[in-house]
């Protein structure tokens, strides 16, 4: 290319760029669309639209919850502050018209007018295929199903086109609740089978990209990491037709911008904001901020009991007396949590979980216990936390570090990248750490089974093992299944007491799930999965 040609062609481009003046037409449809559309902003979005997929993340659960139906779901009751809260003990049919629980099985009659998004009727064989899939694909869904003793495809029996029976392997109080969690969703089996391959018999690749359910919404557009657009399914029979026609869910990584969008009135709902923002927005009163405790969830300080010095219960108690509980509540959580400490001395243990323990910040007692344990001069250790939740974990660990230094425990803070956290937990080598655990199924024995039982699941992060504890937990599970309330109560009280006297993990608080929304948004419901249920929401 010659120099002159080049210069000429550049000026040609410039001339082309000078365009005629733009007509400024703003469609009237714009305003209508807004009033029927819910705009949600959050930090992260789904990575998979199917909860059965490999590594589906938590935002993906929200899509599954709203786009698929289950056989049954929970009724609502009035929760803290009058916010509708799911009732863990009451169930209603979603795809099931009615269901009958027998001694060793439960039979579901399906709604005959239920249709998948593509118009195919929902039949018993879709139900069987979907439940078979949940117990067979492996990974998280299979694990979650097994929590309710649902492990074998033979348990799901087709009686006729619209009747399915689920057989129990053993008596387990968690089987029915486990059929109402997100995982046992009913999938359009014919559609997915058509798109499955030999390598992928369950069609996971297909359902990752599109929803194939019968739920109240269907995904019409999904740009990973940017937005999800969902439209209402006009033929939904799982409940009353939702009021919101369209849901646009945008990912806005910057928390400050999410707050600005809310305050300017551009976005309707946001979660995942810093606690300080939630507290300020609550105080200003321009927006509705709903704060509800995580059901069955606790943030705690854990100690590895297999290695010195934390193998000594005296040391653990000393630490429990040295934690600056109130400071953490005020400076880290800005009051947005339920304290899990400092219960009155004479308060009887309840048959409930979570409940506060009786430790308080008491440096003198802590020092005395350290001396008794033979560590009058203290020791050195590290305290680890998950960087994914650094907003809470970092200040929390700094406060704990400062406080422990006063009783001679010198701690180094170890920040573990999110990707590595689970690996580290699995290794069970961290001596001192903070973490959160919360169970979908809201029963004390469920929590304790995962966190304190000697079978040493990932969540028994302390590697705590005690024959007595196992006996109490197993006892409570059996008692729950057989309806033996007296034994159940005694066992639950027993394991809570033991957990607090042995104190391998120190509960700090029950965190809140915080959601901020415009004043004209109504119908927010709290669910065990803590994600939004668009079906009950309304705007205006």
């Amino acid at each position, binding site marked *: 290319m010659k120099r002159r040609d080049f210069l000429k062609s550049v000026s040609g481009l410039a001339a082309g760029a000078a365009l005629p003046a733009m007509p400024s037409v703003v469609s009237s449809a714009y305003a209508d669309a807004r009033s029927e*559309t819910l705009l949600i902003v959050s930090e992260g979005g789904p*990575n998979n639209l199917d909860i059965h997929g490999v590594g589906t993340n938590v935002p993906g659960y929200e899509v599954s919850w709203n786009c698929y139906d289950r056989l049954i779901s929970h009724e609502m009751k009035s929760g803290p502050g009058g916010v509708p809260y799911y009732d863990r003990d009451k169930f209603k049919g979603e795809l099931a018209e009615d269901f009958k629980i027998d001694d060793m099985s439960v039979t579901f009659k399906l709604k005959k007018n239920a249709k998948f998004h593509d118009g195919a009727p929902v039949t018993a064989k879709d139900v069987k295929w979907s439940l078979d899939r949940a117990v067979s694909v492996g990974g998280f869904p299979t694990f979650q199903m097994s929590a309710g003793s649902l492990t074998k495809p033979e348990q799901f029996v087709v009686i006729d086109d619209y009747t399915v029976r689920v057989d129990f392997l053993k008596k387990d109080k968690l089987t029915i609740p486990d059929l109402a969690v997100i995982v046992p969703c009913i999938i359009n089996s014919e559609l997915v089978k058509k798109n499955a391959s030999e390598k992928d018999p369950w069609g996971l690749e297909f359902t990752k990209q599109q929803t194939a359910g019968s739920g109240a919404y269907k995904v019409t557009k999904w740009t990973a990491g940017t937005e999800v657009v969902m439209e209402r399914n006009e033929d939904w029979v799982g409940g009353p037709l939702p009021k919101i026609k369209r849901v646009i869910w945008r990912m806005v990584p910057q928390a400050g911008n999410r707050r*600005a969008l809310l*305050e300017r009135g551009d976005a309707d709902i946001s979660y995942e904001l810093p606690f300080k923002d939630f507290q300020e927005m609550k105080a200003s009163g321009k927006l509705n901020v709903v704060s509800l405790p995580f059901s069955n969830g606790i943030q705690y300080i854990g100690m590895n009991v297999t290695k010195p010095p934390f193998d000594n219960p005296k040391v653990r108690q000393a630490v429990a007396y040295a934690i600056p509980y109130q400071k953490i509540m005020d400076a880290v959580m800005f009051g947005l949590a339920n304290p899990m400490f400092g219960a009155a001395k004479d308060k009887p243990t309840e048959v409930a979980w979570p409940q506060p323990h009786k430790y308080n910040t008491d440096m003198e007692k802590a020092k005395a216990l350290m001396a008794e344990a033979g560590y009058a001069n203290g020791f050195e250790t590290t305290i680890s936390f998950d960087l994914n939740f650094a907003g809470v974990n970092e200040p929390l660990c700094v406060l704990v570090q400062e406080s422990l230094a006063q009783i001679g425990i010198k701690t180094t803070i170890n920040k573990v990248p999110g990707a590595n956290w689970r690996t580290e937990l699995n290794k069970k080598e961290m001596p001192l750490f903070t973490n959160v655990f919360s169970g979908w199924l809201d029963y004390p024995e469920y929590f304790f089974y995962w966190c304190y039982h000697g079978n040493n699941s990932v969540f028994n992060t302390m590697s705590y093992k005690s024959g007595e504890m196992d006996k109490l937990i197993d006892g409570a599970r059996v008692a729950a299944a057989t309806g033996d309330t007296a034994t159940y109560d005694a066992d639950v009280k027993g394991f809570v007491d033991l957990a607090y006297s042995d104190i391998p993990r120190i509960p700090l608080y029950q965190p809140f799930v915080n959601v901020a929304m415009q004043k004209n948004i109504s119908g927010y419901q709290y669910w065990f999965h803590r994600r939004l249920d668009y079906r009950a929401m309304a705007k205006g």
Partner: protein
Amino acid sequence: MLTMIGKRLMFAIPSLIGVVIVTFLLTRALPGDPAAYFAGPAATKEAVEQIRKKLGLDKPLIEQFFRYTNDLAHGDFGNSLTTGQPVAAEIRNRLPASAELTLLGLIVSIVIAIPLGVLAATRPGSWVDHLCRVTTTAGVSLPVFFTGLVLVYVFYFWLGWSPAPLGRLDVFYSAPPTVTGFYLIDTLIARDFEAFRSACSQLILPATTLAIFSLAPIARMTRASMLAVLSSEFVRTARASGLSPATVIVTYAFRNAMLPVITTLSMVFSFLLGANVLVEKVFAWPGIGSYAVEALISSDFAPVQGFVLTMAVMYVLLNLVIDILYGVIDPRVRLEG
């Protein structure tokens, strides 16, 4: 010229192979176990192993590498686990978003910085010179995410002039059919002027943020190079011959001062692509930078490798374009293969 381009591209091949090997090894050396991460919070050891097998991470490193290069040769960059999409498709979708923003930022920056630099050079010590010094120093010393946040605060939150920082288009407009991937061009092709306005107004703040950041090197380099040229003998001759100041400065001095400026531009363009990462985060821009960072945080190998590889290819091409431009601007520059 074509043989020259061919030769240059040939020379790029070894560096690309190097990039492939290094990124592969680097991503494997990252801390964190993707299998445990993607198995989810409630996974058992067996579940983690199942996932490891599914991801092919149980195979020896060398086998993983050959499988990876084989896939690359077939144009398959692998699948991202965080977004669940094929990496090649994601990069294809996201690169135009980043490129549109970066180019626009660069153009805004050039339009301001070059005249500013020229004026500062022709009147050293004057108020224009001081203005140039102050703006560039301020621009380069403010971190991009900070400038971005301040702009959002002032123009969106406070004044309400700018639309919500929600990416490339207002939420209620749909994207134009993809032709170039640049919304400004695609909306015009689709004759969707409403969407064009929306895309334009969404671009203003992020592009300004990038422009403010890149003013300094361009303006300073223009000024320095103009000063050198203005004091050279041919300018003195031109002036002595009675040519008008405008002719002297624009036709003679400026063209000669352009070479170092072009070099700087190529550098600025490449580091703007990097600075993009933060701007994309602030403005929820669906670009390639935020994609790579998210992947890195979750130990998601494939997108990181894809990103580095794409960037490497872009640098090679950019350098080639700059070399060709040299030849066009200054016929004395001979291009050697």
